[in-house]
Every structure is written in C-alpha cells, then in structure tokens.
C-alpha cells in the first residue's frame, strides 16, 4: 500500500515537472512530436552533437555556422504587411532569428535592433526594386521594408567586416506557389 503511494507520488511529480517544463520550454517539447522525430537526420544531429561549438564564436570554427540563430515566422498585420523582429545579440555576430519565414510572397517589414556593444552592424536585404541597406550603430534600432514575390529562399547579410562569414548571414524563406494562371496546363504530377 505504502509502496503504491510512493510510486504514484513519484509518477505524479515527474508528470508535473514535464507539464510545467513543457509550458516554460515549449520549443524543446515541440521537438518531441513524432512528425519531427521522424525527420531527424542523424547527419544533422551529429553536427551539434559532435561539434557543439559550431554555434559559438571562435570555438569549433572561427565563426558561428550561419543559419543557426533560430527561425521565426513573419506575422501578417491588418494592412497585409508581414512583420518580424530581428536582433543582433551581444557578442555573438549572429542574427536572431537567422531564418525568417514568410508564409507567402508579399511585403515584409523587418524591425532590427543592434544589442551588441562590441561592434556596429548593418543589414542588407533582398527586395524588388533595389537591395535595402540599413545602418545599425551600437544600441540602435532600424527598419527595412522589403518585397519578395516568388517562392524560394533569399539571403540577408551584415555587410560590415566579414560579419556575414562569421555568422551574420540569414535566410528569408518564402512559402507558397506561383499564381494559378502562371502554371502549366497539365495533369497533377509527382513531387520528389
């Protein structure tokens, strides 16, 4: 009897720790979804498992392997413009997030802040019309409005020094398809 109470209490404690941790660290728990686990590629896991320093400056490599600064989806506002915040954190030479996801083609407003007391940064963004350039002195905030009208991925960069090579190379992923009238008049076909 007493043993069963102990077992139950331990189980309850574990469950509540898991539940609370799930609330506090949702990102870790989302990784445990079967759909994600199914896609876990041992070669990718190896990257951070065997080279844990690839996402730090001057450890495994000289810089930080780019695109390891996380991912954020741009949110569409009532005016139809998608928006996202991107920052340069202290002493890391990365963009956070390093991958911006646009759910569809259109206009994206990027709110940038340089929280890095080590160095001034700048940003260069792809945009129809012309590339967009934003200066980012230490402890400053800037804004870029970009238009991307085709599915696929694009890059953005900090053009100061070799910050891009050190880790400040980011990607913008645009999801969606071309307009229906642009597609080929042929039956559905297999995608790889």
């Amino acid at each position, binding site marked *: 009897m007493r043993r069963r109470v102990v077992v139950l209490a331990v189980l309850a404690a574990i469950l509540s720790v898991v539940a609370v941790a799930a609330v*506090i660290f949702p990102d870790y728990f989302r990784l445990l979804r079967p759909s994600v686990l199914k896609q876990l590629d041992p070669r990718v896991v190896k990257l951070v498992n065997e080279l844990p320093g690839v996402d730090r400056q001057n450890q495994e490599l000289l810089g930080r392997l780019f695109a390891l600064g996380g991912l954020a989806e741009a949110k569409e506002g009532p005016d139809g413009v998608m928006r996202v915040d991107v920052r340069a954190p202290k002493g890391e030479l990365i963009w956070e997030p390093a991958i911006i996801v646009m759910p569809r083609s259109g206009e994206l407003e990027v709110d940038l802040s340089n929280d890095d007391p080590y160095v001034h940064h700048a940003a260069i963004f792809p945009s129809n019309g*012309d*590339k*967009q350039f934003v200066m980012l002195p230490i402890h400053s905030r*800037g804004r870029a409005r970009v238009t991307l009208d085709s599915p696929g991925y694009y890059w953005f960069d900090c053009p100061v020094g070799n910050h891009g090579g050190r880790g400040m190379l980011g990607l913008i992923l645009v999801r969606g398809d071309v307009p229906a009238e642009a597609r080929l008049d042929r039956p559905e076909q297999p995608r*790889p």
Partner: protein
Amino acid sequence: MGPDRRRRSVRVGLCLLLAAGVLVACSEERRDYPLTEQGRDLGSLSGAAGSAPPVAAGVNFERILRARAEPQNWLTYYGAYDGQRYSSLDQISTGNVRDLRPAWTFQFGEFGIKAGEATYSFEAAPIVVDGVMYATAWDGWAFALNAETGQELWRYKHEIPVDTPLCCGNVNRGPAVANGKVFVTTPNAHLVALDAVNGRPVWKQVFGDVRAGESATLAPVVVKNLVVVGTSGAEFGILGHIDAYDLETGRRVWRRYNIPKPGEPGGETWPEKGEARNRGGGSAWITATYDPELDLMYWGTGNPSPDFDGSVRPGANLYTSSVVAIDPDDGAQRWHYQWTPHDLWDYDGNNENILVDLDGRKLLAHFDKNGYFFVLDRTNGQLVRVAPFVERLDWGEIDPSGKVSPRKVPTREGVDICPGPAGGKEWTHAAYSPKTRLFYVPTIESCANYRVEPVEFKEGLPYYGGEANTLPDHWGAVRAFDPSTGREVWEWRNDKPMVASVLATGGDLVFAGEPTGELNAYNARSGELLWQHQTGSGHHSNPVSYSVKGKQYIAVPVGWGGWVKGFAPGTLGVPRGAALMVFALP
C-alpha cells in the same frame, strides 16, 4: 522522508525551474531603442542620376519596324526584326579600326549570394535609344546608362530566389523597349515592365512556374501592341510555351504551348498513352524574328524531354527542336519545320532564324546546333537548301531533300557523337551583312560522350534521362557563308570555341569575342583579323553598335559564364567579369 516533505521538495523544484525559465526569458528580451535607422535603396548610395531622359516614350511599333532607318540606335534585340545583327554605321571601318579604343566601361561587380554562383554571365544585347542605353545583367538586374559617358542613370533589381531551378546559367539576354517602358524577363520567369525614365515597375506578370522547373533568360520582343516571351526549362520536363502580353496593361492576350494535345495537328507524333507529352519540353528561350509583310513571328523551340532517353517518347515529338511560324495576334501556328526530328542529342532548335531576301525570294536562314545550315522559304516553311557548316558531324545525315537519317544515338554504355550538346553553334547569334551578302557564324567543333540513364520523372528535378559530357578537344571558328550557294567564303580558326554573337557593320567589319577575353574585328570580305583588344574576361554576349552626336560606338557586355561545362569545358577557369565595355575612335 514522508510524503509531505516529498511533495514540498517537488514544489520547490518546480518553483526553481519556473524562476530559471523566467530568468532565461528576461535575458532574451530585446532592448528598446528609438527607431533611428531606415532602410534605403542601395542604388541611392551610388553615383546614379536617378532618372533617364524620356527618349523611350517615342519608341513604338512603327519605329521598330523601320529600325534600319535610324542606325544611331539599336532599337530591338537583333537590331531589327529580321535578326541580321547588322549596323549600317561605317565611321569605324577596315581603314581605321586599328585606332579603336575603350571609350567607357560600366562595371557591375555586385556582392552577395546568387542563384548559380558559378554560372552567371553577362549576355545582354543592350538597347540604345537616342543616347540612352538600356541593359540587363544576370539575377534580375536592369540598368539605364548614358550611352555617351557610361554614367548610370537608374537601376532595377528583381529578387531571384537562390534556389531557382536553372539548367545552365543565371543569365539574361537583354531588354525590349517601347512606349516609354523597358521590358525585362527574370530567371524566375517574371515579365516586368519598367518605367524607362526612372526604372520603377509599371506592371508585372508571372509567366512560368518555378516549382515545375520553368525559368526565363530571353529578351522580350515587342510586336504591335504586344510584348512576347517564352520559357526555359526543358531539362526539367516542362511544357514549353510562348506568351503575349498587352504592352500597356500587362494583360495576357494569348499563350501557346509548343507541344500539341491529342487530336491537334502534330499530336500524333507523341505516344497516345501516358504522360510523355505533358512533360515534353519544347521551350522557347531565344527571341523570335518577325516579318511584318507576312505578319509572322519565327520562334525556335527547344529539345524534347527527357533530353537523351527517347524510349519514353517514340515519335517525331513535334514541335520540339523546330521553327514555328506563328501569327502574333493570336499565337496560331501557320507552318513549322523540324530541324531534328526525335532529338536525342539536346540539339534544340532555338537558334535564331535570320530573315533575308535574295533573288526575289523571302528566305529564312538558320544555323542549327545539329551542325546543319538550313535555308527555308519563310512564306511556307519549304526547304530551299541544307548543308553542314561544321567539320565534326557524325550524329546523322540530312540529304538535300531534307531527309534526316540518324547514324549515332546515345546508348547505355556511352558513345562519342559530334557535335556535342552545345552544337555546331550555340545560341550566340550569327550576323548577316546585306552589303557583303554573307553570313558570319560563330562555330564550335566539339564531340561529347552521350549516355542514356533512364530516370522517373519528378517535378522540379533534372529530367535528362542520361548525360552528355563534352570531350576535351574542342575548338571553333568564325566562318562566312554565302547563302546563295551555301558555300564557305572564309574562316578564322581559334583554339577555343567561338561562343559570342557576331556583329556586322557598314564599315565592312565583323566583330566577335573570344572565350579568353579578346574582342576581334575582322575584314568582312576576307576574314583578316584587323584589330584585337583584351577585355579581361570571356565573351558570351551580344555586341551592338550605335552612335551619339555623330560618333560611332561598339558596345559589348563582357563576363564569362553560362553553360561553360557544355560549350567549352576547357575554359571553365577563365576569369569571371561583369563589365559593359564601349569602344570608339579617338
């Protein structure tokens, strides 16, 4: 330890965990600074003037029809609708060409990552209107320049996804200009109409599906109230098509697929069952020529898909590797001629169709990748004459009646066949001088090992059904041909393939660039090399001629690249470049 104490320690643990989480969350919170920095156009931080004089407003269909009457300008892709790439300007001539020297250079060494980093190339034919030059580069760039000084007037960038499907290169062959607008196609198959004064977009249409492997590289052509374009992508099993858009509104007026449906004329040249025709290729990536009297456009069409494995597409595979004569008003086909029936060698049929009138006949001349020089009656597509124009040719024979007898076809084991997949002449255009009555042709002497490797079709994946690897020994020549006899009149040999468009001028000169950077001027009658200038990078573009304030200029975009692996793999290491160079007499 009693249950109470245990519960208490769990509670404490959870609180600590919570506190740690809050702490982590707080440290990641962004600092709030006032918004002081705004994004700016990169071009606003340059010497660009920001606007061009409104000269393009006066360019309309009537003026393009009579382009030869204003030799100071280069109003359309080939200089005129006939595709002759001939400028009647004669200030620079055989007598003084030795004094030709650089007048100005426009450099465009951009920074950043682009699709096909190793394949971008400067291929454009600049358009010149009353002292203003409009040009395009790779990766969605377009410019207006002062044609006398080279000063940048405006620039436009269309952003191209880094993962755009490209068979061969990140390239663009130039703009079209009419009604105050500059029309540009982009690698991701958009057609953009720009305001010719400030470079801002007026309208845009998407005419290809990047997920299906479609892209675009050609210069648009303006005919009447339409701007007409075609797609690239037959290496991905697309369905090639040609689209026409209203100049003013951008509304699509017609689309024509180059592969017929079952029941349509030509439909019987595809297997009745299965999907072969739906992935049949037949792209249209080279600008059409146009005969205003017959009111016909002449479009070349590309290879069938898959390129090398013909077993999935028994039949002649119309209208691939052909020329189609179509009505510009509705895209209806009047006649066709297939250069390479059931193409198994990636010979395409896109090469330009040059319109010449000889002995009272309306003719169409075409130097095909398959190594044969065809002359057709362009009123009805009847063959007038056919003869080989390269030495290395063993894929098959075409007899004087036009009968095609293939001799060597790709096999599973691999077999050497000539010419290779870049052909006896690549897309880079020949020129015709009405003064000398000769054609000037950039040629390639190459062979390749062709191998069949059957693959299942998957959308967006390369769909070659094998491979063709160009063999190491390849060279080339500029050759002059007399269309009335089909005979070669002179030849200038080079130890590398000649893969840049030729320009013929009224000064009895012929200009052609080499892969190793030399721009050459030849005597148009004898082929004697009269002048040479090392530009620093290889030539794979369309030189043009124009004049401003009575001074003649020769303009040539320089920047080696494109599908070098196919047309001249022995020059893959030639220095890359990104310059538009303009020459004049002192």
